[in-house]
């Protein structure tokens, strides 16, 4: 089947109990047992069934099945957020004293989790530039239990060759986990390229409408079962209502992604030709260092663009204060176009030197291109850039 069909039907059937075409929202904390033995069998895992929504829930389970199906793998678990998904995967696979090798360009929240939180549990994170396979190979040691990459990476759209990383990981029998939030299975299926685990912030393109927080981890049945054993005790569960909204969002993933990509390509080309723009980071432009990798492993370049405006931080700030249609906000993957200037917004506390250290140029701006008409977005950027 095509992905357009899969997002609508995949992993989903009319509710077997009542025939409801759209799945019911099981907004319940707990489930009744037929009798004491039934309860005992459920707890021992001798019979399948639901006990308590932190442990499992029909609406949430349906979402996990659907995303696993879309990512061409066996099974999945849904979490309270993308970070909760990543945290659960890492602590499940990596014990105290062992290490994770992670690419150095990852979402800021993931970076903070890896740099500040995981070391407290004795888990070491070794940062490398995974776009250079040699760096990954040479970082691996006996204690390496997981390789983690995000591609395209937030915020510079750095591309990493998933197949190459998978080859290295498989040789050493180390699982490879890919954060596929930016691409979604509409553009890229890491499991088909050799990855073992795929994680998502479902808050972004999966939900698509900016109304929920959620996270996903999918992989082989045996791994997900192992992950579930810890996850039910860690308790980073999602609300059934949020799971239902993600199920609803997924149905239009294909049509949304198609438009996100088309709009972003045009905006990236417009920005690349603008005299107030220093540099554009978009995998759909030939000038992007990851252009060839993107062509190989993605079916489109996605809806995220980064660019440096000339004039650094003050220029970036003027741009932020001049856009009228683009919304100043963090998060991404929404139907609305969201724009963010790290130097004056999320990273405004950083000195110039500190910004440099994190690899964020003072004039760097990130756009999550929405579903508005692209001409209106370009007009807005045009008038805002003119004020710099």
């Amino acid at each position, binding site marked *: 089947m095509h992905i357009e069909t899969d997002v609508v039907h995949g992993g989903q059937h009319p509710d077997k109990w*009542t025939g409801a075409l759209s799945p019911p929202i099981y*907004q*319940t904390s707990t*489930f009744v047992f*037929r009798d004491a033995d039934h309860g005992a069998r459920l707890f021992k895992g001798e019979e399948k069934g*639901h006990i308590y929504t932190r442990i499992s829930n029909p609406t949430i389970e349906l979402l996990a099945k659907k995303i696993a199906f879309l990512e061409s793998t066996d099974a999945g678990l849904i979490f309270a957020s993308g970070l909760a998904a990543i945290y659960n995967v890492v602590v499940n696979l990596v014990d105290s004293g062992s290490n994770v090798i992670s690419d150095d360009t990852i979402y800021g929240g993931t970076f903070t989790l890896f740099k500040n939180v995981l070391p407290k549990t004795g888990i070491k994170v070794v940062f490398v530039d995974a776009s250079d396979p040699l760096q990954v190979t040479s970082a691996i040691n006996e204690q390496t239990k997981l390789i983690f990459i995000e591609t395209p990476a937030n915020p510079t759209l750095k591309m990493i060759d998933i197949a190459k990383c998978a080859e290295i990981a498989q040789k050493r029998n180390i699982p490879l986990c890919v954060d596929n939030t930016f691409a979604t299975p509409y553009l890229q299926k890491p499991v088909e390229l050799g990855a073992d685990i795929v994680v998502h912030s479902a808050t972004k393109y999966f939900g698509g409408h900016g109304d929920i927080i959620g996270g996903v981890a999918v992989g082989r049945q045996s791994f997900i079962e192992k992950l579930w054993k810890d996850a039910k005790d860690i308790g980073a569960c999602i609300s059934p*209502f949020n799971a239902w909204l993600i199920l609803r969002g997924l149905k239009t993933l294909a049509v949304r992604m198609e438009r996100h990509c088309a709009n972003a390509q045009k905006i990236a080309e417009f920005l690349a030709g603008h005299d107030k723009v220093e540099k554009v980071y978009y995998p759909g432009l030939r000038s992007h260092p990851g252009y060839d990798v993107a062509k190989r492993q993605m079916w489109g370049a996605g809806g995220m663009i980064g660019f440096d405006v000339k004039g650094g931080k003050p220029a970036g700030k003027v741009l932020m204060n001049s856009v009228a249609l683009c919304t100043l906000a963090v998060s991404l993957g929404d139907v609305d176009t969201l724009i963010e200037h790290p130097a004056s917004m999320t990273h405004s506390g950083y000195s110039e030197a500190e910004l440099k250290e994190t690899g964020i140029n003072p004039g760097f701006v990130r756009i999550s291109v929405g579903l508005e008409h692209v001409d209106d977005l370009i007009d807005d950027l045009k008038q805002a850039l003119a004020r710099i």
Partner: protein
Amino acid sequence: MNEGVQKYVEKAKKMVAERERYLKEQVKKWKFDTIAVHGAYSVEEAINNNQGSIIEPIYMSTSQAFRDSDEMEAALAYLIPAWTYSRIHNPSIGYLEDTLALLDGYGFDGITGCCTASSGMSAIASAVDPFLVRIGSRQNEPINFVSNAQIYGGTFQQFSIRKMRERGIECRWISDPNDINEWASKIDKNTRFLFGELPSNPGLMFFDMKAVIDLAHENGIPVIFDTTIATPALLRPITLGADIVIHSVTKTLTASGFGIAGAVIARKNIVTNIENDEMKADFATYIKLLPNRDMGWCISPMQAIMTLNDIRTLRSKMDLLSRNSMTVAEFLSEHAKISQVNYLGLKDHPLHGVASKYLWLVDAEHDEQYGKSVNRYGHLMSFQFKNGVQAARRFFDNLQRIWRATDLGRIKSVATIPSISTHQQMGEDLRSMASIPEDLVRLCIGAEHPDDMIKDLEQALSHI
């Protein structure tokens, strides 16, 4: 009927019989609170139909899928209980309807049914329109119905404009509903039903319901009561012999304020002079499956479950809200700047006696806090000012914690000036007929501590 359809019908018969047995042998024997918490959602219903979920799932789905054409035929012909399409029915909506029917039927030996609607106003239309038909031998006769004049402004509008002016159906207004002779004098052979709202919003009209019910039935017509303000925790007209009850479910039944909804509750075998046996036998099911299906004013399944959640604590909530209101009403009645307080719980209210005959906190005699029957009067009151409309506005504008909003029945205290809001559309003449003076403030006390509400009222009054 082919063999396949027959099979589904047989299976459904068993299911329906089992459900009726459960309702009769178990649910109808429970106390009010137990019914409010569980309704008809049994352990079997959870395990067999809902994966064991202890909370009724939100069936946020437009349609039901069928196994085969036989099941579809049986469902669409209403031969088996099915839901088909959420404009017609839906499992979540069904759970709410079960609970509402059982609560208004609490203390009534017979069977009650419920049909929800998208709002209280559509519930009223659902309840009255089936009686205002021109069918059979009554094709060309004039149509009228009788209603007390002191009713909610929206209802007044629906009756006076939509029915009277636009459809030529006469609404005969009763100015003193405690005068049974006035009711009797308005009834003739063309009268289709009697309608009463009590306690009324905002004037707190109350009357001897039993006399009106008897009068209607002597004339072969039904009585429809809107008891939104009382809720079934204080008043259940069907137990007194009434035929149909309507609620704006938006109000105290959904005290959290999570949306708009309405409901019609009817007993089986209503009294009517309309030639329609189906309607007479089971009014709620009739309007649900036929007129309401065609009118389309259905409720959302999400709304149904949110309301259901609110209803689970209805009795204790109505008790608390009533007690808080009593405290506040007593404070206001002693305040120098207030000319008059209308609250049915105040002993000097002219209708206190008749209201006390009917408004009882359900199951107070089984509540260890009381151990005997206890009157409760709800949380609606209204009052006027010695210095008239200017004072009313000044007071209103200075409220700090009590919300200024056209709302009532909330867990939060809310005040409004009906003459410029809820009853503005009536115009001055009709307002005076419905006893809604310009300086009347309507207040609905919530679950806050009454001391804090009194402080807010006190400071607002100090600005006059």
